[in-house]
């Protein structure tokens, strides 16, 4: 077992690593969302999973605002009928994605 200082150092590195990967995760969300908006409903579950992972991890790594925004996005997606274009609140979803981007990239 590692000593306390080693553990805390590794936890710090893990937080940085998580933060560094956020833009990549956001790109994935943008890309899946674009495909879904264009009518590719096969991307719906992938998008929900991607957003779900973000909402379920952000606060644990020290980013509660990521959990909050991703949680809002997850709720909006889940309220739609499995990504059917006519049931997606596009403007609202894009607003939350942008807000998530603000929090992620700053």
């Amino acid at each position: 077992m590692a000593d306390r200082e080693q553990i805390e150092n590794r936890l710090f590195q893990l937080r940085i690593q998580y933060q560094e990967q956020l833009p990549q995760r956001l790109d994935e969300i943008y890309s899946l969302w674009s495909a879904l908006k264009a009518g590719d409903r096969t991307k719906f579950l992938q998008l929900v999973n991607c957003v779900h992972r973000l909402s379920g991890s952000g606060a644990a790594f020290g980013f509660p605002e990521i959990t909050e925004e991703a949680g809002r996005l997850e709720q909006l997606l889940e309220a739609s009928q499995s990504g059917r274009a006519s049931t997606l609140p596009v403007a609202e979803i894009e607003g939350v994605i942008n807000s998530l981007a603000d929090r992620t990239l700053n």
Partner: protein
Amino acid sequence: MRVALLEDDDEQRELLSLWLESAGYQVQSAPDAARFQQMVRKSPPDLAVLDWNLPESSGEEVLSWLRTHYGLKMPVVFCTARGASPDLIHALESGADDYLVKPLSRGEALARLNAVMRRVDYREAQASNQFGPYLLDLQRKQVYMDGETLSLTQREFDLANYLFQRHDTLVRRDQLLSAVWGQSAELTTRTVDNHVSRLRRKLRTEETDWRLTSVYQQGYRLESPPAT
């Protein structure tokens, strides 16, 4: 205290492992059910922490496997997403001991796992004071026989506890006097005999296979039933 962790997300798995290690737990972890089962078979842990939603299997399947192979003795805590209340209810009803909601919080996760382990320690302490039909509750200073409370005085409880902890061993009268009444007690061994005689009646040994026998000029032996 050894913890086995099943979590498919690499970062969350490492994060939780580190939190647990920082609290003194020894952690072994796996990213999928197959490797988790292999790991547990090789070295069964004191506590299992499972992610409820796994890509290729489910926490429920793993929980069921643990209960089949290790019974109820191993506490199982599962992790689930916020707001997944059907999951929570289902997992608890399927035999999980507690749950953690994602995103995890270090303080809450450790507090919950520590609480689960305290309950296990208590259960084990209770179990270690079970002698056939007799259960000695050291906190309440009560003796139960097949769940029925036996009415013992404080002194009789101390005497019973001393004898049960040394069952099948000869205990001298002066040993009992010193341990139960205290070194300075100016009492005769007759006191011990009277108490033992009353205790024997109250333990209703004639209804069980236990015997509290006198060993001439030496002391007493609480005898457990012969092995069959």
